[in-house]
Structures are given as structure tokens and as C-alpha cells.
């Protein structure tokens, strides 16, 4: 039986952690993710879970300790945001390259400067090439559901990679909304016991973690790691299917919302997808054929599947909530355009930068973007291919 409740995105993730009851959680507080370790500490203090909490002195140490615990054979996780993730940079790469199936709850917040505590995706997108699996959520429900699916994906022997479960800082992390929680028993059964094949605290089968590799071998290690990330695609879908059976909620690489006959599609990540869906419903009422493609899995990048979903529309608005400082496009814009080109899909596109450092993104912005796409396609209006929306006049 599902439990109908209301809670914030941070509470939802902390509740998922409680139900999973992982072995070790090292963490260092940073807004807006601080509540997660705080709530988990409460669960521990109340004797509700047996997780070992390690209060470390920095995020660099938080990720180091997470990797250390995971290497020892313990199911481990941490939580962070923004500059905290930046300080973990070196360790993020180590977690992935040492094939540690640990989990990070990322509450997306902009990176400095100007210093700001609000949401954009510059932290998560900055870590997009560290080898982690990245899954993004629209709301508290998805943050919860994604978190429960994290370990079954990470620990699968075909994958053995760390997973970052991302949600938008404040917009979902601090927003109280309705949610359906699972009972503890099916969650425990779904997530299962962690039985690592190889781990440091196993005297019967000694292993080395993180040794030096000479050039004769290092490149093959990288290729193996890249193959594992690609193999995660199949596992992500398998885990989603299994999760649907116990929750009734369906997940994939992305959600296609009213796209089947759409002339114009907005491709977007995170909480703004909900705002876009509302705008799409409003525009559909006016007879506009528009839809939303909400990307859930950013790493591994499902390029083929995205192209397949977009190939029949007239134009796509690709929405990036981060600036890449390259003058050519945001991370999502650049990768989708590369995918479209490689598969010779002739779809016009505009890459919009929106919502930086907490700038609000509204249904009116969505109306404007769809109107601009239509004007570009129907009337030949010249539109910059890479532009900002929501700037002050």
C-alpha cells in the first residue's frame, strides 16, 4: 500500500535513505543539501537506522570517506551541493574509475560567482564527464523514486559505477508537495542486500584499489569504464521496469509529454519540466501542437533515443540551466545537436539558457519560446541558435 504524504524534496531523499538503511554516510553541510545529512542524523540518533554517520571536515573528505567505505565493502553515500561538489572533483573521478557503486544526493545549486545559493545545474553539469551516472528529478516524488533505484543500478555487476541523484535546490528540495511513499518491506526487497564481489575487508580474497597504472594498461581501464557506463543504459531500464512493478510509476531515460504529434518540442531537465507541461496543456487548448521531452538520465547520454523522439518535430527548444562559457551552446544543447547531426536528423533547434542562479522560469517563458520556434519555422524569422531567456531588460 502506498502511503500518501507531503514532504519536501530533501525530506523525500532522507526518507529514501532511511528505508534503504545504508552502511556509511560521511557528509559535510552545504546549502541547500544540508537538511539531508541532518535528517539522516536524526534517524540514526533515534535508533531508526544503523547507518554509521561520519562528520567530516570538508566535502573533499566526505567523498574520500565515501569511497573508502565503499571500497571496504560498505554501502555508502553522501550529499552535497554547488561548491561542495566542486571540492569533491578529484574524488568524483576516483569513485567512478575505481568502479565504486556509491551514491551521491546532489541538490543542484549554482557555482560561484557571484556567490548565490539558488538553483541552476552548473554543479551537476560541471561533473558530467567524471564518469558518474546522473539522474535528474522533476519533483520530490521523482527524487524519492530515483533514489530508491540508485543502488540497484550502481551495484549491478554489469555497471559498478557511482550514481548521482539530482534535484533542483530550493525549488524541489525545500518545497513541500504531495508524495506517495512505499512501505518499508517492498523497498528493502527491491534494493536488496549489498554483497560486493570484491572488497578490501575480505582477507580471503585480497584486492588493491586505486593502484598506479602504467600506460600499457591505463587506456584499457578507461575504455572498460566507458563501456560500463554504456552498459548502464540497459540496467537503468531494467531497474525502472522492476520499480514500476512495485510502485506503479513508470520511468525511462526521459518522459515524453504530448510529443506524439508535436510540431514543437521543449527538451528540458528538472523542476522546470513541470512548468513546461502546464504551459503545453494551455497551448494545446489553443490548438498548438507542442510537447515536452523531460530528460531524466543525462549520463549515460541517451543520444539515439533522444533523436528518435525528436526526429519528426519541426523544431526543438533545448533548455540548459547552466552556462558553458564556450559561446557555442550549453551541455544539453551541444550534445543533442551532435546527436541530431550524427544521425542526419533534420530538426531545427534553438538552445536557450534559462534559470541561472535561481532566476525564475515561468509558464510565460514557455509560451514565448514556443511562439518563437513557430515564428522561426513558419515565417522564417531569424533566431539566434544559442540565446538567453529571462534576462532583465
Amino acid at each position: 500500500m502506498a502511503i500518501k504524504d507531503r514532504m519536501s524534496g530533501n525530506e523525500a531523499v532522507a526518507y529514501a535513505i532511511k528505508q534503504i538503511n545504508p552502511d556509511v554516510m560521511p557528509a559535510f553541510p552545504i546549502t541547500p543539501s544540508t537538511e539531508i545529512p541532518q535528517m539522516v542524523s536524526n534517524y540514526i540518533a533515534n535508533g531508526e537506522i544503523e547507518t554509521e554517520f561520519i562528520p567530516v571536515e570538508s566535502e573533499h573528505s566526505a567523498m574520500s570517506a565515501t569511497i573508502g567505505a565503499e571500497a571496504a565493502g560498505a554501502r555508502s553515500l553522501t550529499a552535497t551541493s554547488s561548491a561542495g561538489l566542486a571540492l569533491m572533483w578529484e574524488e568524483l573521478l576516483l569513485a567512478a574509475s575505481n568502479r565504486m557503486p556509491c551514491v551521491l544526493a546532489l541538490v543542484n545549486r549554482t557555482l560561484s560567482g557571484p556567490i548565490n545559493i539558488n538553483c541552476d545545474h552548473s554543479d551537476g553539469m560541471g561533473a558530467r564527464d567524471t564518469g558518474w551516472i546522473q539522474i535528474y528529478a522533476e519533483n520530490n516524488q521523482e527524487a524519492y523514486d530515483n533514489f530508491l533505484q540508485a543502488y540497484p543500478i550502481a551495484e549491478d555487476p554489469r555497471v559498478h559505477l557511482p550514481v548521482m541523484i539530482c534535484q533542483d535546490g530550493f525549488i524541489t528540495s525545500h518545497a513541500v508537495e504531495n508524495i506517495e511513499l512505499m512501505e518499508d518491506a517492498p523497498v528493502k526487497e527491491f534494493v536488496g542486500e549489498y554483497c560486493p564481489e570484491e572488497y578490501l575487508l575480505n582477507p580471503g580474497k585480497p584486492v588493491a584499489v586505486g593502484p598506479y597504472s602504467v600506460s600499457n594498461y591505463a587506456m584499457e581501464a578507461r575504455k572498460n569504464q566507458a563501456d560500463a557506463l554504456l552498459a548502464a543504459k540497459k540496467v537503468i531500464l531494467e531497474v525502472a521496469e522492476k520499480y514500476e512493478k512495485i510502485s506503479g510509476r513508470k520511468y525511462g531515460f526521459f518522459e515524453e509529454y504530448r510529443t506524439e504529434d508535436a510540431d514543437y518540442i521543449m527538451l528540458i531537465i528538472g523542476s522546470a519540466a513541470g512548468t513546461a507541461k502546464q504551459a503545453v496543456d494551455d497551448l494545446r487548448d489553443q490548438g498548438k501542437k507542442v510537447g515536452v521531452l523531460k530528460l531524466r538520465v543525462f549520463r549515460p547520454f541517451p543520444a539515439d533515443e533522444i533523436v528518435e523522439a525528436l526526429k519528426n518535430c519541426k523544431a526543438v527548444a533545448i533548455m540548459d540551466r547552466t552556462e558553458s562559457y564556450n559561446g557555442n551552446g550549453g551541455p544539453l544543447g551541444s550534445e543533442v545537436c551532435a546527436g541530431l547531426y550524427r544521425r542526419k536528423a533534420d530538426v531545427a533547434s534553438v538552445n536557450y539558457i534559462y534559470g541561472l542562479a535561481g532566476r525564475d522560469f515561468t509558464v510565460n517563458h514557455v509560451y514565448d519560446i514556443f511562439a518563437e520556434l513557430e515564428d522561426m519555422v513558419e515565417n522564417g524569422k531569424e533566431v539566434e541558435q544559442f540565446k538567453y531567456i529571462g534576462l532583465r531588460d
Partner: protein
Amino acid sequence: MTNNIEIRWHGRGGQGAKTAALLLADVAFKTGAYVQGFPEYGPERMGAPITAFNRISSKPIRVHSNIYTPDLVVVVDDSLLASVDVTAGLKDEGAIIINTRKEAEEIRSLLKGYAGRVYTVDARAISEEALGRYFPNSPMLAAAVAVSGVLDKDTFIAEMQHSYEHKFAKKPEVIEGNMKALTMTFESLKEA
């Protein structure tokens, strides 16, 4: 109004506007509604202006932006009237509630010609009498419920008793005072 309502709260950091918005989401949820309660932070410090929001609807809520055309505005600190455009976008058929000691007509003159309903409540007097200290959020929560009608008074009072027993499990001595502040507000709310 109970079918789909959007509320914007204006307060200062530390006054509990965010907590009031979350409590309102909480009690509305218990009546079976879909709810959203969320804050917008500016500078993170005591006394800085903050905004919080509620959406309460009979249908699932998907929009994740701030609220620009609210049905109801709640102002937790009347000193904000000088610096914040509190009636911006407020619907004429909506209402505004202001925590103030000023007379309602004097307050209306500060609202840039807002034509809708204006309510005042002296949350300081209520809080000081009921709790012995100044915590404006309980009176303002009761005022928001009374004006919006998102739930009826008796249901609200019963739910809040339950909610405070949970929230103040370690400080049971403040439950009675907070409950008194809620009921006093229903009696002293004034329409200008």
C-alpha cells in the same frame, strides 16, 4: 476560492513566514488537497525580506515557479509596505492580510490603490497575550485560513492541535499558547 488558490507570503527572515506557508500546506494536505509550500530566499540573514508561496488545488500541481498573480497576499511585517510592492499582481477579487497595529483605513492608503479586500490583524498583541512573546506566524496562519477558506475553522483548529503536538513534542508548554493565538485571530481579524 478553495478549488485552486495561490498565496504569497511576505515576511522577514526569522519571523516564520516560511514555516507558516509550510504549515498551511500541511493542514490543506490533510483535507485531501494537492499542495505546494515553498520559500524564496534572498540574502540568508535574520531580518531580510523573504517571500514564501502556497498553491492549493484539487488537481496535481506541476508548476514550479513563483506566484505572480496571487489570490491572497499575507504580510507578516507591516514595515515591508515601505520597501516591497506587496500587492504586485494581486487579483482585485482577491485579498490582502496585514499584520499591523495601524487602523485598516490607514493601511489601505499605503497599498497603492489596491481595490480588493484588505484585512488587518494585530499579531503582536495576540501573540504577546497568548504566548507571552512575539511570534507572528501562528496568528497570520489562522488569518490566511480564515480569509482564504481553504478549510473550515473547526477542521483547522483540530488539525493544528494535532500538528503542534507533533511539532512541539519537546516543548508541550507552548502548545496551549499557540492554539489560543489561533482562536483569538479568528475573533479579531478586521476587514477595512
